[in-house]
């Protein structure tokens, strides 16, 4: 094995850029999180003040609750919508129905839209002005207008809807691939035994796709935790703090409040959550291999 050591030359460009853009900054965030630096002033001392201040802040509880609600609802929504479309597509494919590729294309098209544009589009749809899309339709059928963005609870639902609309395509593709990999013999046998469609779903589809659903939950959770551009454009975190999630809070802390130490401490919290989820993901992958 003469290539044993020389082989790493092939990896040098990748390792170099990932080291510079990810590894060094991650270590630096850890260092900064223990410092008193601001965006404008360099480090003058180290300590746990950043963490103490970050965890003592009244707002943190609200932020973490928002993050949990937004992430949980989004993950459930993304997976249910993704799974429903994937199963519909597979059924259409099996029966040779028309338009299934077109449906897939339409769903994927939403996925291509930049997060900022997504937030702006939903802002126009849910606009509370008398001419807002949804509210003017409601008025036409005699329902009073809904405060989609100015009511705290509704604003959270609106943010989740916008996120699910854009992100379902990813889950759809994962589930579509997984469903097609299920052995058709299982369904044929169930058919012979006279199992109903819902029984087939509960006893074949769900158990067979358990691995894909697990992996997808972790991936979608991490993606949702890290998104903030849709919310930034849709509600800006408001009304008040009603839709301010952790990632948006970090963004505001560092780049509007210029609190680098505190923002870094929060970024370390975000990184810690992502890392824990990643370990879960790895454990699932290893389990599936063996």
């Amino acid at each position: 094995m003469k290539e044993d050591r020389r082989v790493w030359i092939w990896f040098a460009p990748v390792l170099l850029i990932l080291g510079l853009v990810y590894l060094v900054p991650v270590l630096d965030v850890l260092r900064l999180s223990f410092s008193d630096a601001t965006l404008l002033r360099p480090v003058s001392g180290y300590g746990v003040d950043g963490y103490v201040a970050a965890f003592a802040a009244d707002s943190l509880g609200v932020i973490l609750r928002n993050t949990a609600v937004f992430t949980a609802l989004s993950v459930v929504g993304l997976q249910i919508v993704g799974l429903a479309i994937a199963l519909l597509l597979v059924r259409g494919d099996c029966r040779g129905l028309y338009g299934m590729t077109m449906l897939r294309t339409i769903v994927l098209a939403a996925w291509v839209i930049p997060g900022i544009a997504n937030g702006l589009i939903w802002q126009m749809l849910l606009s509370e002005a008398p001419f807002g899309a949804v509210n003017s339709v409601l008025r036409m059928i005699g329902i009073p207008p809904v405060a989609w963005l100015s009511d705290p609870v509704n604003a959270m639902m609106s943010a989740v809807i916008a996120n699910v609309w854009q992100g379902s395509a990813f889950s759809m593709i994962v589930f579509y691939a997984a469903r097609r990999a299920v052995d058709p013999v299982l369904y044929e046998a169930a058919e012979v035994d006279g199992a109903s469609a819902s029984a087939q779903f509960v006893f074949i589809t769900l158990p067979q796709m358990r691995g894909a659903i697990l992996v997808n939950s972790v991936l979608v959770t991490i993606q949702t935790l890290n998104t903030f551009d849709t919310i930034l454009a849709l509600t800006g975190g408001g009304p008040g703090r009603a839709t301010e999630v952790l990632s948006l809070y970090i963004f505001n802390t560092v780049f509007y409040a210029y609190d680098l130490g505190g923002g870094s401490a929060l970024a370390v919290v975000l990184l810690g959550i992502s890392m824990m989820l990643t370990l879960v993901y790895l454990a699932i992958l290893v389990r599936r291999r063996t």
Partner: protein
Amino acid sequence: MSPRVADIATYIAGIVLAALFLMPLAWLLSLALRTPAEVYLGAARFIPEAPTLDNFRLILTDGAFGTYLYNAIKLCALGALGAVILATPAAYAASRFQFRGKGPVMVAILLVQMISPLVVIIPLYRYMDRLGLLESHSAVIGVYMAIGVPLSVWLIKTGFDTIPLSLEEAAAIDGCGRFEILARITLPLAAPALASAFILNMIMGWSQFLVPFILLTRDGQLPISVAIYNFAGSTSASTTQVLAAACLVAVVPALVAFLALQRLIVRAIMAGAVKG
């Protein structure tokens, strides 16, 4: 339920879903084609009675938007190209050589994706500030390359895996060196994988907001995704139709690229999805 009835139910569900997913874009187009007077009529004027292209004219003749579009294309094309170039040697080695530590390093590369750009952007801002790179596009292109590398390595490796080794061995017998084989045989055959990695990177770069928002300081350097955010902050409700046109201008290039190359893209995501 008989299969016929189930087919009809499938069609109805499909149409409802398609409508739900198309509606936001259709509304955007509807707004963008309206005059201010018709904007105030809301959903009643979903199909404008006096459609106008004035909003698009306003956006596209404004020199700034041309610059934003150009910046966006430049940033994501160079970032995507760089990621593919950096990823290709590693992908080739991962596909062709057996060596200790291959599995862990490939998984580590994949896991880098789990780190939010939000975490690394804080130190990166400080480095680029000190290096004086906040005034140029090079910092953003470098970060885009790093963001695109993990997915590119895996996609291109999958592409190399499908090329039979016997082709390379035959060329070696004919006296070709390793690099000649790579340049003349392997890379051309891996073109679909290289292309799909490039396109996926382009689309991801097009959506990027945080990196250019933080790492660029001059307005004339901003890509369209940041520009529409700033533009939205500067308008009042009376110019909704102009904002809609601006959003469409930001969305359409990505949609067109996606529609044109969708076969390639879907195959690439599926390959990734099965692996994940």
